[in-house]
């Protein structure tokens, strides 16, 4: 059975049909790509699956459980981790606090712990710190742990966001344009990072990208979305040569 499946999902913003009869099956460990022109509805699909929006129609199942319309923090705690297209970091928090915060659902010392500072709290906070530090180390930003994110270079911020998403213990990781604004060098590092976490945690990954090189290299399957509708789905080879995709998205000349 598929890890994540979406059936006939439709979403409207007022009159605008942002997503139309969208279907998805994602197997454990699979890396799936989502491409399409600006405004096609890619980010909206992420927001729908992760519960930020509630779909107008359709049904989403994760691990056999229907998650349509559940609250986002709960969906996230089930194992759907994500990053954002526009880097949504918490301006005033340190790197370490970011990653620890993502352990929120794993903490159960309750209000007694929060208000009075029980030994249980001490223990769990220490554990959270440990998990966080190991993730930061893995992404090579452990030396920045005590810095406030606002002052970090962009690349580091991206990594922090990734570490934060991983700290929720996801089974599926949603990456929304993870390489926006990166140099080719950074881009290849990012590919490396994604490969590592994919292997290490056995994650399924669903990612949105405009950098074709990146998509083609990483993804096993790719969906192409245009005006909220999937016009093609297949492996990288098929997509690259699909005339509909070329017409609507890639254009004649292939850059990058």
């Amino acid at each position, binding site marked *: 059975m598929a890890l994540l499946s979406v059936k006939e999902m439709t979403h409207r913003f007022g009159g605008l049909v942002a997503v139309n009869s969208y279907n998805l099956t994602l197997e454990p460990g699979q890396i799936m790509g989502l491409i399409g022109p600006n405004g096609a509805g890619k980010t909206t699909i992420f927001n729908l699956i992760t519960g930020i929006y509630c779909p107008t129609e359709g049904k989403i199942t994760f691990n056999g459980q229907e998650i349509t319309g559940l609250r986002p923090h709960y969906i996230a705690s089930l194992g759907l981790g994500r990053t954002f297209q526009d880097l949504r970091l918490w301006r005033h928090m340190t790197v370490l606090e970011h990653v620890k*915060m*993502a352990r929120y*659902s794993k903490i159960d010392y309750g209000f007694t712990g929060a208000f009075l*500072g029980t030994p249980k709290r001490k223990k769990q906070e220490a554990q959270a710190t440990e998990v966080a530090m190991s993730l930061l180390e893995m992404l090579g930003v452990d030396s920045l742990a005590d810095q406030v994110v606002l002052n970090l270079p962009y690349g580091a911020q991206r990594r922090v966001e990734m570490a934060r998403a991983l700290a929720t213990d996801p089974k599926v990781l949603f990456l929304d344009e993870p390489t926006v604004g990166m140099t080719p060098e950074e881009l290849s590092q990012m590919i490396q990072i994604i490969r590592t976490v994919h292997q290490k945690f056995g994650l399924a990954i669903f990612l949105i990208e405009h950098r074709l090189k990146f998509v083609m290299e990483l993804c096993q399957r790719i969906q192409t979305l245009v005006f909220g509708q999937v016009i093609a789905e297949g492996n990288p080879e098929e997509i690259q040569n699909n005339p509909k995709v070329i017409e609507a998205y890639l254009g004649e000349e292939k850059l990058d």
Partner: protein
Amino acid sequence: MDRMPLIISAVLHLILLYIALHTWSEVSDYRNLTLRLTLIAVLLTLSLNIINGYMGEFSCSHPGFMALGAYMGSVFTVLLFAKDKLFGPALLPPELGPYLFPLGLIIAGLTASVGALAIAVPSFRTRGDYLAIISLAFMFIVKSLIENLEVVGGPRGLSGQPNWANLPTVFLVTIIGVWMINNFVTSILGKALNAVRDDEMAADAMTVDTRKTKIVAFMFAAFWAGVAGALFAHVLRYVNPGTFGIQKLAEVLAMVYFGGLNSVYGSIVGAVGIQIMGEALRPLELFKWILIPTLLILVMIYRPTGLIAFKEFNLKRILAPRK
């Protein structure tokens, strides 16, 4: 340093602090009164900082919470332990009173917490400016409600509170309050407030239960505001609804933003600073109200988030021997 000595050292320091304050306040009851009001202001400011600083909402409801606490606390003590025009003779022997006073404070706090739901629930759907208005409306509602409640004296106010909010009591309650608030804001549950403030959607996506976080923040802050209100009522031994209006709001807001957002230190500095200025500049009469605002404007211009913002209160660092 390991754990036990830290606690002992903290307690010792507190005792020292208390002794210092006590000695200072021995000189006159006016100092004593000012000191108690200052401690209460610290508690109040800190509790407002939870919402306005840590959670980043512009809440105008604090006088309302305070009023709820002040009235509930007063009704508790006056009804049970004091002979009074409104409620008649005491229901319980007054000797018991001082021991049950903490219970009264807790009830006062809880009442305010329940009131806070009126703002916490709308805060799920709206934020920022609109929530500011909701909280402002709440404040006016509470004030108007009390004005219409003849049982507690209506606009004429309620007096006759027993004199139990003495310096040790106020000191102890404030210390407990500061300690608990500090515990809370350094825990993950408390840091979640910052996450909700800086980016709510991201917080949600990172498994943070944002609704719970907001409810807890409002209720917890209101609880301490209520406790502060109850103490305030027992220090002045008189309350009236007019006290909990826009003026009070301006006062606490000034303290929070003067001292510094998102900072336990800041609130202490803000409350103590403004309170002391207010008393020390009394001889200036009218011009006090030109000088203090000017000072605050300057602080805002040169330190827009307040004097000591975004600074964690770290007991270890304070108490550790300095090299």
